[in-house]
């Protein structure tokens, strides 16, 4: 398998974006390679006009709809690659949305950018991630150089980014802060049997107004996270603004793989498949391990979520 090429492109104008994007896409199409462009609606329009007739051969998606959360985005990339795996090289131009995100969200997306170096390691994907210096903050642009081994300005060549960090070190830094302690009104219980995890979580979800399919999905996420963590454990549930949070804590057990649950299930069952499902269902899944044990914290949308 070809190694992945993962490059950042820090651009400051539409012109600079196109100077990278047009050759990157055109070269791929010329070589018969699959090309996926997932970026803002503004950049999709710019690129479409510049490509002219060639645009018809480009797979495209607006970033907002191509993986709402990091685990969904990583999964979407893996699936695109699997669907095109007969090709030696698969090109992806992937620009995340950074504006308006919470600090927690920004950290999660940086963490994923770094994690992609390991997750897509031997896929042969050539991924360029554009960063719009007109809108992203200095912190995000600096970390782009830490999460991408090289930078690219012309869509063809690269040079070392200079401050690339080992992904495990970078992710370790993202996970360094302890999770906030559960609030006093959290309900918690020690649980021995795995089928009692879903009963506890379902009951507590209903008590806090989450019902129907949403409660069922949260119960599945909690069950799968518990299956990954192992029994017995202590479960806790509480409500936050717009969210229902569920903590699962297993004393004495250290969960080690920080990227577990980012790769979608394949034909062979793996222990991380359940965690992957939990990450698809939930808005946030945080995993922490320390000397005392491991915690998986699930956050799903609360009962007042409006979907139109």
């Amino acid at each position, binding site marked *: 398998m070809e190694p992945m090429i993962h490059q950042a492109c820090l651009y400051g104008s539409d012109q600079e974006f196109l100077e990278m994007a047009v050759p990157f896409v055109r070269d791929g199409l010329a070589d018969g390679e699959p090309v996926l462009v997932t970026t803002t609606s503004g950049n999709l329009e710019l690129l479409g006009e510049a490509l002219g007739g060639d645009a018809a051969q480009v797979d495209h998606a607006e970033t907002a709809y191509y993986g709402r959360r990091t685990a969904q985005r990583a999964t979407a990339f893996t*699936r695109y690659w699997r669907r095109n795996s007969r090709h030696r090289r698969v090109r992806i131009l992937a620009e995340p949305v950074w504006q308006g995100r919470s600090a927690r969200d920004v950290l999660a997306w940086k963490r994923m950018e770094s994690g992609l170096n390991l997750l897509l390691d031997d896929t042969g994907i050539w991924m360029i991630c554009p960063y719009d210096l007109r809108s992203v903050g200095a912190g995000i642009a600096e970390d782009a150089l830490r999460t991408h081994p090289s930078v690219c300005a012309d869509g063809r060549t690269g040079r070392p980014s200079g401050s690339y960090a080992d992904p495990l070190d970078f992710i370790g830094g993202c996970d360094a802060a302890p999770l906030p302690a559960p609030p006093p009104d959290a309900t918690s219980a020690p649980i021995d049997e*795995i*089928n009692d995890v*879903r009963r506890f979580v379902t009951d507590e979800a209903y008590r806090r107004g989450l019902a129907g*399919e949403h409660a*069922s*999905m949260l*119960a*599945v996420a909690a*069950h*799968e996270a518990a*299956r990954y963590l192992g029994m017995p454990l202590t479960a806790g549930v509480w409500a936050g603004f717009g969210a229902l949070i569920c903590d699962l804590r297993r004393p004495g057990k250290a969960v080690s793989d920080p990227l577990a649950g980012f790769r*979608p*299930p394949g034909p062979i*069952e793996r222990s991380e*498949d*359940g965690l992957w*499902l939990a990450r*698809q*269902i939930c808005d946030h899944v945080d995993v922490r391990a320390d000397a005392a044990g491991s915690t998986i914290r699930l956050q799903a949308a609360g009962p007042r979520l409006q979907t139109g």
Partner: protein
Amino acid sequence: MRMGPGEHRSVAFSDEAELEPVLAPFISDGLAGRDKVLYVTDVTHPAVAVGLLRGWGIDPDGHGGRLEVRELGTPDPDVMVAELTEAAHRARAEGYRALRFTGEMSWAVREGTDSLTAFETKVQAVFDSGLAMGICQYDRRVFPPVTLSELQRLHSGADVDLEFDGALLRIRRSARPPGLELDGEIDANGVDELARALSAAVLRESGDVHVDMGRISFIDLSGLRVLVDTATALTGGRSLVLNHVPEHVVQLIGLIGWDRAPGLRVRGGDA
């Protein structure tokens, strides 16, 4: 179905694979617990039956005489019941809870219906004593349908369609549409039984296999994987059709991308 001493059930089959969901748990539960097991064959050579057990994950030699497979001697109801009574008493004397008996009933096709009725009535007394429990095996290929339906009334397991009766999950065969009905919750506690019942259904039926999911309140990823693996292994244009699938399970299948799995058809609650 988990059975206890005193119970007397039957299993009707048209392929040896259909015996597995019934007999494999019956025998392994006994060996894992405190029972002895006696398996009496008629048309099948004991060595072939031993091979079947191995195929079901039961080690026929690993239990120091607690599992005996032998060929039927005299097909006389009185002699057979006397032998069974003696074996049940011996098991109790040796410190076991009970004797688990299973036997091929094909001898009754040769001996006649009166003989069969005599056996089934007399053997009931042995089970009623609480020293034994049993499953009588009826091969659909050799017994007339009318005999089979009469026999079902003689067995306490009148619900012959019930394939598994666990604490959280029940699996029942269904004739229309052909396949299975599931009731309860599916996780690690029922997933092996589900896999067994599905593979038996795939062998039993010639066309699509239907699974009614309308009374499933929970299924985890391992349970969904069993359904998908069964579907993708089907050949010849056959499908595994999931009916009355709860809305959140439809969503889960879609999230995982298994809604596009070859051989799988997912129908929601209105189907």
